[in-house]
């Protein structure tokens, strides 16, 4: 009986956490990094960068990106947007910019998160494969420990 009560309390606490997160989480945007989660709407020119772009640094004023040896400095306001935002809006770039050290004009830039999103897809498949390895390993460990008990 005590076990079931504890189980119910834990379940209720977890449900409360999930509800709190679902209700409050999307409103918590206070840094550039957090803007990505929100996929906030941008105004003005929207430029999506090709994949394989790395963000070297960013602060309140500039965003420094790199592709290979080419570096690009972008002025603010910069809005980062994730491929994986809540409504899964894929960015449809109106134009791709040439990364030859150009300074990209504002007023807004959208860059696509997961600069190597092709790798992300691979990563998902790899993780599924890892699960296929993990399940028999865990099963064998369970059997081994049971036989030793």
């Amino acid at each position: 009986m005590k076990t079931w009560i504890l189980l119910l309390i834990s379940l209720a606490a977890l449900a409360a956490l999930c509800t709190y997160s679902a209700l409050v989480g999307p409103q918590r945007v206070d840094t550039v990094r957090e803007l990505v989660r929100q996929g906030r709407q941008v105004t003005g020119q929207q430029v999506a960068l090709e994949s394989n772009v790395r963000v070297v640094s960013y602060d309140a004023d500039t965003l420094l990106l790199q592709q290979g040896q080419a570096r690009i400095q972008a002025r603010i306001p910069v809005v980062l947007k994730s491929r994986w935002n809540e409504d899964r809006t894929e960015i449809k770039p109106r134009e791709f910019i040439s990364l030859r050290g150009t300074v990209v004009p504002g007023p807004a830039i959208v860059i696509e998160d997961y600069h190597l999103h092709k790798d992300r897809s691979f990563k998902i498949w790899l993780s599924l494969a890892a699960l296929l390895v993990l399940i028999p390993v865990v099963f064998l460990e369970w059997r081994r420990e049971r036989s030793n008990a």
Partner: protein
Amino acid sequence: MPDLLTHFVTAYGAREIEARRRLSYWFLIGAVLPDVLTRPTTIVMPSSFWITMPFHTPIGLLLICVMVSLLVTGRIRSGVFFNLLIGSYLHLALDILQAHIAGSYYLFFPFSWKSFEVDLMWPEDSLYLMPVWVLLGIFFLLRRVYLERQQGTKLPPNHPEGPRTSEEL
């Protein structure tokens, strides 16, 4: 997240290295638990991110480990709880080594919405190290086979170098 293979091999290696052999297979399960609980729904339905996000936080994982351990029999309960918890916290420790341009990990949830990471590597970097993980996994596997052949199973169950017993789990 580093991929699950990285998490799994790291946990497997930690388990093999841990001298007192207190880490059971529940530790391995714990090491992949946060991603198994959250990523499938996030990938299929990205809008569920905020609903499942607590499953990838220390407090949420603590509650889940409590729940799972309550479902097993009393004798091994504490072992299951601690192994799951340590495994899942190892997962979080590996995750925060990454750098994202988008969001990171809400380790202090629900007390704070500040997200945190160490920014040491990009998420895909673990893929480039894949051959290392595979070799490490094979190494630990061969090491175990070698040690078991050396020691056999004749040692008493409670011997530090002997096989684990259910009490130790």
